[in-house]
């Protein structure tokens, strides 16, 4: 079994999936940062009270803030700019691991400035950036490749394990989030009212869904049950991928995995779940970054790019 694991961690594949994920993560982060700037929230949450913000003291635990002497306005503004530039570099595929590292440390510093603001999407973004830093995510679909080879794409092989770790990260997030839904409102004995209540909360809802949610209450109950089951069983997806990847070892489970593409089931439910969440509730970049992780379910040879980009 150890030899199988060593062999699996040594696999290489084309860089298309990781490159698409790199672009998606950087674009989502860049949009989030621009939105904070344009909305006027920047001065409230990323300045301390002495400089016109809300908190008496900003969070200063992030490694970059410790290195730069703390979250003074000049430091925060500089980190904001550097993170945006790093994100742009990642989108274009220039700057390699340096751009990714700058973006990661910048995001960590900014997200930690105002404890209690933000949410799970921040950790999904920084976890993605760390794994992208470890990966070779600019081997294709990058300006670097264009300058080196004359083409935007390349068939250069890259380690496959970062993509698997990204799938693992998504599975860990889902299962943990599913298991922690212990509030009775998520369960039949509590009336399966969690989704209904969420839609009625003005702090989260994008519009007044109260009458719709009340009229479609049985549907919200179904959505509540589906959410818990979907999240708590997401461990089956990386297991299925492992079974598919080791098909040569035979067995009934692997035979089943070769016939049924479980990814598509969870992808379809995930798109409906996160799409609905994104449309009805204000969860920031959560839906977008979670759906971006789904890219990693697919091997590069399973992703066909439009001919013109090749």
């Amino acid at each position, binding site marked *: 079994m150890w030899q199988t694991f060593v062999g699996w961690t040594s696999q290489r594949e084309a860089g298309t999936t990781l490159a698409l994920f790199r672009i998606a993560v950087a674009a989502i982060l860049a949009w989030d940062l621009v939105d904070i700037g344009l909305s006027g*929230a920047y001065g409230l949450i990323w300045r301390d*009270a002495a400089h016109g913000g809300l908190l008496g003291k900003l969070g200063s635990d992030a490694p970059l803030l410790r290195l730069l002497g703390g979250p003074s306005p000049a430091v925060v503004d500089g980190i904001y700019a550097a993170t945006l530039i790093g994100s742009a570099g990642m989108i274009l595929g220039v700057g390699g691991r340096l751009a990714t590292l700058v973006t990661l440390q910048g995001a960590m510093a900014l997200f930690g400035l105002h404890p209690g603001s933000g949410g799970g999407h921040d950790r999904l973004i920084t976890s993605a950036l760390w794994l992208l830093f470890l990966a070779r995510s600019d081997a294709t679909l990058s300006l670097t490749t264009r300058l080196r080879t004359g083409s935007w794409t390349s068939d250069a092989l890259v380690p496959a*394990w970062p993509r698997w770790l990204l799938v*693992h990260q998504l599975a860990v997030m889902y299962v943990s989030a599913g298991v*922690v839904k212990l509030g009775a409102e998520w369960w039949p004995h509590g009336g399966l009212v969690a989704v209904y*209540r*969420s839609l*009625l909360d003005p702090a989260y809802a994008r519009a007044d869904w109260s009458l719709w949610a009340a009229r479609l209450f049985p549907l919200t109950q179904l959505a509540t049950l589906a959410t818990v089951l979907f999240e708590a069983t997401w461990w089956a997806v990386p297991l299925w991928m492992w079974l598919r990847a080791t098909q040569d070892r035979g067995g009934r489970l692997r035979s089943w995995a070769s016939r049924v593409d479980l990814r598509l089931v969870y992808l379809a439910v995930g798109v409906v779940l996160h799409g609905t969440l994104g449309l009805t509730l204000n969860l920031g970049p959560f839906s977008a970054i979670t759906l971006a992780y789904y890219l990693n379910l697919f091997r590069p040879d399973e992703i066909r790019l439009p001919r013109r980009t090749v």
Partner: protein
Amino acid sequence: MPWTAHVRAALLALYLVVVTLAAVPTPAGFSRTRLDDPAVKESLDAWKGVLSAIGVVETDEEMADLAWSAGQALVSGRQTLIGPFETYFWLTGTRQSWRMYGGVDRRSARLEIDVHEHGAWRTVYADLTEHDWRGGMLRQERVRTVRDHFSDKRNRSKWRGFVTWMARLAAADFPDADRLRMRFVGLDAADPAAVRERGGQPETGAFWAEERELR
């Protein structure tokens, strides 16, 4: 296979184990007094109904004790296993905390902001209505998460600071206004039938009203 492949495999195996263990959920801000929170008590009551049916607990006290000891075991066990890797998580931004929507309270609140102009109060902002002064900022998701604490009646001193901060904006945006008022109006998501009959959520009364002079 070269020895480097084995080292890589070993590191990746360690990574998978550590990240998985770190993601084992533990209760947020866990303390005995948290079990007295009305929303937590409501949930414990419902679970007590299930567990008493199978003879695990019989009384409210036994349910609270079970929740407390289970929570403590999770928190301390996780810290023992993951503690040595905290520096790694801190350096790489890979902390695994996925307590998202573990509980959804039936109580929520609508934020309302009024300004006093020409001798009368005028609503300039109310959640999910046409009154949308500085709505883009108030709905920005990182501000929304800060506001969410206030609507849960947490951190009142910070709420007062938030009102003062908004007053500075109001003083600039409403030159004819002499006062700002901000408050929450409690809402109850109890019963879909009541919402349908009423045409909206029942209100449970205003709270945390604060006023500020603008001139």
